[in-house]
């Protein structure tokens, strides 16, 4: 394998996950903050808020997962190596 392609792939794989984690991190933080505020204001709605929050987390998390899929592609199934 060409060493330049190999090193660029490894750096790219790291950057793909790292950069993809920034946005969902901020988003999950603000969503969790709003959920805590909602529970504090209305403790009897806790169950409903929690289940909605978990579903929303799964959607946000999937954005990081897209980055992870790209990095797995670069590490294990790199199309530029052969």
């Amino acid at each position, binding site marked *: 394998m060409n060493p330049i392609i190999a090193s660029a792939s490894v750096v790219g794989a790291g950057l793909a996950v790292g950069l993809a984690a920034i946005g969902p991190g901020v988003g999950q933080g603000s969503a969790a903050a709003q959920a805590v505020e909602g529970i504090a204001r209305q403790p009897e709605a806790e169950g409903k808020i929690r289940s909605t929050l*978990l*579903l929303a987390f*799964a959607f946000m998390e*999937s954005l990081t*997962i*897209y980055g*992870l899929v790209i990095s*797995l592609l670069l*590490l*294990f199934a790199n199309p530029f190596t052969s």
Partner: protein
Amino acid sequence: MFFSLAAVEVGEHFYWNIAGFTVHGQVLLVTWLVIAIILTVAVLGTSNLEQVPKGLQNFVESVYEYTADIAKDQIGEYEYRPWVPLVGTLFLFVFVANWLGALVPWKLITLPEGELAAPTNDINTTVALALIVSISYFYAGFKAKGLGFFARYISPTPIFLPLNILEDFTKPLSLSFRLFGNVLADEIVVAVLCFLVPVFVPLPVMVLGIFASSVQALVFSTLTAAYICESIE
């Protein structure tokens, strides 16, 4: 010992050649097991129906109600009934597949190449599921509106035409990548933690993986119902 129980092999497959096609045998084996489990529970639970349910029938009925509620929440009271089988099947398949991959120590069975794991950690399985979802929401739209279905590509204004066409490609892409990435990411995280600290430390992550994989099944079926609702309304 612990390390070898959790090690993960990415990109290595147990190839079978069937009629000129190369297939991933380890995925097919576990897929058949998942189908067998779901069929057995469903047949045993519904074979001896009683007015007052007990035992397995009780369990199967509550599973049915749960999956029907997923469809009902998204599609609505009047239209949801024909879509319960699709949404329920997708939910059950993804759920059983994810839990089978997380709970069964597959490493005890050695294959010549590759390893047995959840079938959803192979991109081919998840892409197939996502394409089923795509085809069924097109079918739902055509059945509900006929050729008027294409009006949604130029709504609200014709400027949105390229975006609306692009959306038909990004929907199956995101569905399949989300499921595949989540399942594979759980396995890799557990494998890396087992490599660093073999005892106790990976346990919370394993529990998180079991929880996350059930949430992924819920997300997949909820999105299926939401896409179908979007095209029939």
